[in-house]
């Protein structure tokens, strides 16, 4: 075989290159099947950090689409329910600089709130039901609606579509389930703990050093 190929250099060159290309093509084809990734693993990790309120305040139809958008380079500061802590966690994961929350997409609420429908005024238009991302509003056409308090994430999305403005966002009452100890007051933050032998306010010593 080799002797035959050696007699015809052109045939040998063709065989070698085609053989090489075929072998490598097969290898890559196998690798594409063997190392196939389901979906986007980085989007999964981002999705785990997002608060899963599905509120859509970021401009995406839910947390998962926003996670995919972040994986493709979208800004990380569009999630008000996640707050500064969420942005910090995302910045750590993606090795980026944390940026302040984009106020265009809403502000961080310090106290979690719950939607409340003034049932006497409700006309049963079902518009808030369609707006609710977590199906926390119960009701039917021309019937009054009500909110399942335990399901409501306090995302404000139902307030805007209501034609009679009968939805209030009520700050959540502190109960046995939601109360927690205040975090210790970080006094040390305001004090400069870096050891120094220069007297505060003594500029001449700093210059001399």
């Amino acid at each position, binding site marked *: 075989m080799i002797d035959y190929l*050696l007699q015809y250099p052109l045939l*040998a*060159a063709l065989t070698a290159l085609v053989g090489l290309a075929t072998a490598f093509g097969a*290898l*890559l084809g196998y*690798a594409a099947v063997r190392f196939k990734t389901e979906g986007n693993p980085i989007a999964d990790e981002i999705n785990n950090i997002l608060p899963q309120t599905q509120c859509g305040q970021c401009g995406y139809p839910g947390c998962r689409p926003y996670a995919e958008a972040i994986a493709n380079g979208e800004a990380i500061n569009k999630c008000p329910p996640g707050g500064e802590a969420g942005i910090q966690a995302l910045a750590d994961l993606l*090795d980026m600089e944390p940026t302040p929350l984009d106020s265009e997409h809403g502000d961080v609420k310090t106290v979690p709130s719950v939607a409340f429908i003034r049932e006497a005024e409700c006309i049963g238009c079902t518009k808030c039901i369609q707006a609710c991302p977590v199906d926390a509003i119960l009701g039917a056409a021309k019937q009054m609606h009500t909110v399942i308090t335990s399901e409501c994430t306090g995302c404000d999305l139902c307030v805007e579509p209501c034609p009679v403005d009968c939805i209030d966002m009520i700050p959540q009452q502190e109960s046995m389930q939601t109360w927690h100890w205040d975090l210790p007051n970080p006094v040390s933050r305001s004090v400069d703990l870096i050891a120094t032998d220069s007297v505060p306010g003594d500029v001449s010593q700093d210059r001399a050093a």
Partner: protein
Amino acid sequence: MFADYSLLLISAILVNNFVLVQFLGLCPFMGVSNKLEAAMGMSLATTFVLTLASACSNLTYHFLLQPLGLGYLKTIAFILVIAVVVQFTEMVMRKTSPLLHRVLGVYLPLITTNCAVLGVALLNISKDHSFLQALFYGFGAGAGFSLVLVLFAAMRERLTVADVPSPFKGAAVGMITAGLMSLAFMGFAGLV
């Protein structure tokens, strides 16, 4: 035997450094040295690809091209080998380490056209290296590339905050620094 291989490593890392002495792989040297983390990721990926590509191209040459008398096809064959090795690395990395893939995703295709990779494969042939020698030479080339890239990135990070005269700001002072580093590496010439 051991002395031979350590000599080969030192020669590839310091004396015949691929970037600063042989001037191969200059595009990532200038392009990816703005941030230290990116430079570290890039040097890791390049070292890996250099070692693998050096060994694979050596095998291709000695077991396919040479027996058939096709030495003149080595450039084309090596480009094919390198492209496949890089693509394979990218697939494996995407599966095993998504974060590293996110950091290196842009650079991996760049490595395909990195002249240091093709350079190490061709130099292996012209220096008549055996398989093991090629492996060590490729790894040495990668280690030398990493050393220089990380050092240079560290310097450039300091240069961005340094008080540089305005005509020299940015890439210009980077080039001057690279030239000075190259001069410094020429000092290793008498080592081996």
